[in-house]
Structure formats: C-alpha cells, structure tokens
C-alpha cells in the first residue's frame, strides 16, 4: 500500500524534530531509514500510525488521511514494531500473545500458526513469553504484528540483539511480505540487515531527508557511510576485497560472484 508524507513539520516544544519532510513509499517497496541519533527517524515513523500529529503537512496511507484516525484504527493497515517490542508482551503463552493483535482487530481467522512457523517460534509457542530469551521475545513481538496482516510494516531496529539465524528469519519474513505488496519501512543501524532487506535507503539528518538512494549505491559509498559512523556490511567488504563487479550487497549476490573461486587449504 502506498504511503505518502508531504511537507511534514513536527516539534517537541521548541525543538523542531522534522523540518519539512516529503517522502513517498510505493506498495511492495522495502525501504531502510538511516541517520544519526536525534535525526528524527523515530518521530517520522510514529506519524504513520497517528501516535504523533504533524504540526504541518499531510500523511496518507493508501486512501486514508492519517490525521483523521486514531492509532488503534491505523493498526488495521500499518503494523508498527517498536524498538523494545519485547516489553509489550503480557499473555501467558507466546501463541496467545501473538493472537492479541488480530483479536483486537476482530480478524476472524488469524494466521497465528503460520507466522510462528515462519519466525521459527513454533517450538516455543506454548511457553510463557518471559520464559524465552529477550531476543526471542523480540521475534514474538514481530510475529504479533505480522499476524495482524498489515499492508504497511514499520520497524524500529528490528534486528538489534538478534543473532544471525534470527536475523535471516526476519529478512525472509519481510521479503515475503514485500512480494505480497506490503510496504516495508525499517529504521536500522544494522547494514547487514539493510543490505538484505532494503532496495532503497533514506538517510535523515537534523529533521530533513539528506539522501534517498538505491541500497547498492549507498552501501558501496564508503565515505557516505563513514559520515554516518557506519562500516560497510561484510558482503560489501568481501566484494571490494575480491573486486567483484556489479556492486553486490546481498549474500546471494556475493556468493554468486564468488563462484569459481579456488580455495586454498587453511594454513596450519
């Protein structure tokens, strides 16, 4: 579903957090939002679910004017995964907690089981959410949002604290949603994740959009990354070291580029 922000301004008291933001996201697009702390990334994402109201400008999600909606109404279209989403769980089992959102929305046949399966949580479905490690709880919270079948997904640092297999599950889940036309917007510092799960990267600085580029362009632009205090992901580091062509960023692309490499045995 299309998301459009036009001429957005927002202030916390005297501090202007957003100073004129225009951004359009198309259905099925996977976009990463980058920027230093305090650039306005989180504020921007909150506008999409009506948790904040802009002081100027318009936010639309599909044909909905967000200005006329409450957060619990926006939940029908926009799924928001909070940074510390592990702190929102409360039910006595993981599957019950995942079913909470769909139940609030009155979905008749919530797809709890498949979502748990997708995120590798089927084996722990009957456990109490606080009996699993915090990173797993984070996946539970993501499952809870996916089960609501949103048309737009907004995620704040979805991979912080996750290990690589868990991150790969998140990447796969997001790609699957995007193929179904879900718009995905993820705030993330984790460039390994961005490389896998974004086609486009929007960089914010001081309340404005500073850059808006295809992912392979930005991740191969080392000076730009250094300016953000970031190092290129391992996939790009390897590609540069091996002089692979075509600016690959995703694991599959790099592996493809490395095909035919002759390996030596490890030195003793």
């Amino acid at each position, binding site marked *: 579903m299309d998301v459009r922000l036009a001429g957005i301004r927002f202030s916390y008291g005297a501090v202007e957090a957003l100073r004129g933001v225009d951004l359009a996201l198309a259905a099925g697009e996977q976009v990463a939002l980058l920027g230093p702390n305090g650039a306005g990334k989180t504020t921007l994402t909150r506008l999409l679910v009506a948790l904040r109201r802009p002081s100027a400008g318009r936010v639309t999600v599909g044909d909905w004017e967000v200005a006329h909606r409450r957060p619990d109404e926006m939940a029908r279209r926009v799924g928001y995964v909070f940074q510390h989403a592990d702190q929102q769980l*409360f*039910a*006595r089992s993981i599957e019950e907690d995942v079913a909470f959102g769909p139940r609030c929305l009155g979905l008749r046949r919530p797809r709890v089981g498949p979502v748990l399966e997708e995120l590798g949580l089927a084996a722990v479905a009957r456990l*109490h*959410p*606080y*009996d699993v490690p915090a990173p797993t709880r984070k996946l539970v919270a993501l499952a809870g949002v996916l089960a609501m079948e949103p048309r737009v997904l907004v995620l704040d640092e979805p991979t912080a604290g996750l290990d690589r297999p868990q991150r790969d599950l998140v990447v796969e889940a997001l790609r699957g949603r995007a193929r179904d036309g879900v718009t995905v917007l993820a705030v993330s510092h984790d460039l390994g994740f961005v490389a896998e799960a974004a086609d486009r990267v929007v960089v914010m600085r001081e309340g404005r959009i500073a850059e808006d580029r295809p992912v392979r362009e930005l991740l191969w632009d080392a000076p730009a990354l250094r300016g953000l205090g970031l190092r290129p992901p391992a996939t790009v580091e390897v590609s540069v070291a091996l002089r692979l062509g075509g600016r690959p960023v995703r694991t599959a692309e790099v592996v493809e580029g490395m095909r035919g490499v002759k390996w030596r045995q490890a030195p003793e």
Partner: protein
Amino acid sequence: MTLRDLVLVRLGVALNLVIGQIVAALLLPVYLDSVGTILVAALVGPRAAITAGLVSQVLNAVISGNFSWLPFALVQVVIALYAAAAARLGLFRRLGTAVPAGVGMGFTAAACSAPISYFLFGGVTAGGVTAVTTVLRALGAPLGVAVAAASFSTDLLDKAIACALVCVVLRSLPRTLAARFPGLAR
C-alpha cells in the same frame, strides 16, 4: 532486607506512582496507587510492603509538594499489612476471592483514612474525595458522615480493582519468575 527485596520494593514504589498514568489514559475513576504495595506484600512480605507504602507516600509528597498528606502514611501501613495477610491466606490466587478481599481492604483503608481526613484536615484532602464530601455536605449531611461516605465510596472500588489486578499479575507470572518467590508457593 536483601538486595533483591530492596529492588522489589523500589519496583513496587515505582508501580504505585506510575500506574496512574495508565489509569488516566483509560479514563478510569480510580487511582490504583497501592497496586505496587499489594504486589510487594504478595511477593515478598509485610515488612517490604510497609516500606514500599511509606516510601511511596514520601515520594508522592516530594513530587507533588503536598507534604500535608504525609499523615496518610498510616493508611499505607494498614494496606500493606492487610495485603500481606490476604496473600498468606491465598486470597490472590483467584479473582473470586481477590475482589472481595479488595473490597475488605477498601473498607479497612477508608476506616483509617476518614478519621485522619476529618480530624487533621477537616475533610479537605485529595481532589475527588473532597468534591464528593463537599457535595454531600451541601446536601445537608453532617461533615463526619460526608467525609466517611466519600472515603468509602472511592476506596472500595479502587482497592477491589487493585487486588484484582494483582491477582491477574500473580497468575500471569512465568514459571521461572514465580519460582524466585518462595512465598507464592504456599
């Protein structure tokens, strides 16, 4: 008290002071500002609960500036003792017993706070209670009756909901957390 008890008391105090934020968002006509005290009574015991109640009262004063309410600390002590006794009797295990226990707690608390309110403050204390008192007094009820009626009507509902909520919390504790509190097993 052990370090764990101290940290739990701090948690109870913070809960007492912060739960109002959630209650206000839901526009519920209660305070629930002793939920933390009751929880600590159930999880740790009477001594920790009394401490939580007293510290909450002092912090409330420090934050709001309403230091004249400090004498109501006595009510917090009574609530803590009642809650610890109710927990020991297992009344928080089911909603069916927790709610009546809460009503009883409301009675007890009001029976303590009404005289303090009457004798020390002439019936003028916290916002909601005072408004009810004034209306009743204007309708012709004697001051003592007005104060008592106002205190009881607000406290019964408040403590009944607070005890129900603590019951839900205790029932929702994951096994690994519950096992840290040997008192719960009783």
